[in-house]
């Protein structure tokens, strides 16, 4: 049993330890505590497992999120197979995934100036809601959002046109959307040979 000197570390301090954000003095303080406290060793090891596990899931494209170019660059470095589309507001695209695709990325272009966050709803041709994302942060003056979806999810999606409607999170009900995009989903394809 190892007694911990003083108050144990918070999950925030221990998660910062694994990032570039930790200040040298804080790093030394955290290490001094962990080397004398078994409970905080457990917690630090847990956060280490968590961050590695997130990295592993990300490396296989196993998440859906609105991302940045830096994440796409990391995909490229890791050899993740990405199928990419770009769409202007009001546009439509015939889209499909191939059997070796891991991630589907869509660059959603529109004038997002003056908007700090958006909500996005994907609806099937019938009007039924298929997916929703809320409070997506928008950098100031942005003209593009990057949506990443696992190819496995797209393979399971119905082969019908789908409409993505993007609204400002701050917009009152009934206000017109910022942009709409139509995905004419053509399913999953297999390469021959």
């Amino acid at each position, binding site marked *: *049993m190892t007694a911990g000197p003083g108050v144990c570390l*918070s*999950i925030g301090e221990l998660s910062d330890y694994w990032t570039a954000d930790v200040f040298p003095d804080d790093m030394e303080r955290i290490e001094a505590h962990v*080397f004398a406290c078994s409970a905080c060793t457990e917690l630090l090891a847990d956060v280490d497992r968590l961050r590695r596990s997130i990295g592993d899931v990300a490396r296989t494209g196993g998440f859906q999120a609105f991302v940045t170019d*830096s*994440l796409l660059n990391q995909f490229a470095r890791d050899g993740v197979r990405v199928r990419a589309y770009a769409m202007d507001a009001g546009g439509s695209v015939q889209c499909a995934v191939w059997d070796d695709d891991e991630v589907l990325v869509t660059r959603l272009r529109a004038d997002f100036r003056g908007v700090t966050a958006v909500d996005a709803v994907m609806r099937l041709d019938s009007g039924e809601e298929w997916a929703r994302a809320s409070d997506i942060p928008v950098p100031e003056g942005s003209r593009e959002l990057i949506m990443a979806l696992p190819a496995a999810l797209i393979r399971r999606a119905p082969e019908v046109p789908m409409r993505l409607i993007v609204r400002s999170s701050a917009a009152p009900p009934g206000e017109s959307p910022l942009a709409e995009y139509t995905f004419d989903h053509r399913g999953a394809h297999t390469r021959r040979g």
Partner: protein
Amino acid sequence: MTGPDTAPFVDRPDGDLAREVASAPAGHAAAAEGELYRRFARRIRLFGVRHLHDDMAADDLAQQVMLIAIERLRAGEIRNPDEIGSFILSTSRMVATGLRRTERRREHLQMRIEAGEPVDLPRDERLFDADRIRPCLASLRERERTILLLTYYVERSATEIAVGMGMSAGAVRVARHRAVAAMRDCLEAGRPA
């Protein structure tokens, strides 16, 4: 006169174990040495992963530091055994600096604590299954999920993430702390009872 401490090893403070190693003839306190090794190898390994960014180098660091610590204890060269954690941390810093400088990492695989079988390092850092991580990641708020991916997959600082997401660095850190805590709660809740 005080008799031998019969408390279970896991319940004894680090300083007690260190004193036992220091006071026994060399190699006659194997159980205390083993318990010290079990406790500290893991901490050194976490330290090594953080500073050396290499799992094998972190393993080497743990082996080498514990070899030094136990030899110094046996030789009675550690003045205050109650400060064993502090000694091991400062030795870890020194050895890690040496490992970085010389890049002689592979040589240290041969180093073992003398007497007895080679001791396996604790391997409790197995990753969480992707099937457990994915739903927990999906349950986060959009911005929290993106922040975790950018922090732990792309290894971006809070300042860099803030620029890409139109948030302040402080807000990124707060969201990251909340997201890590939520992920731990979600993974705990999914554990079989």
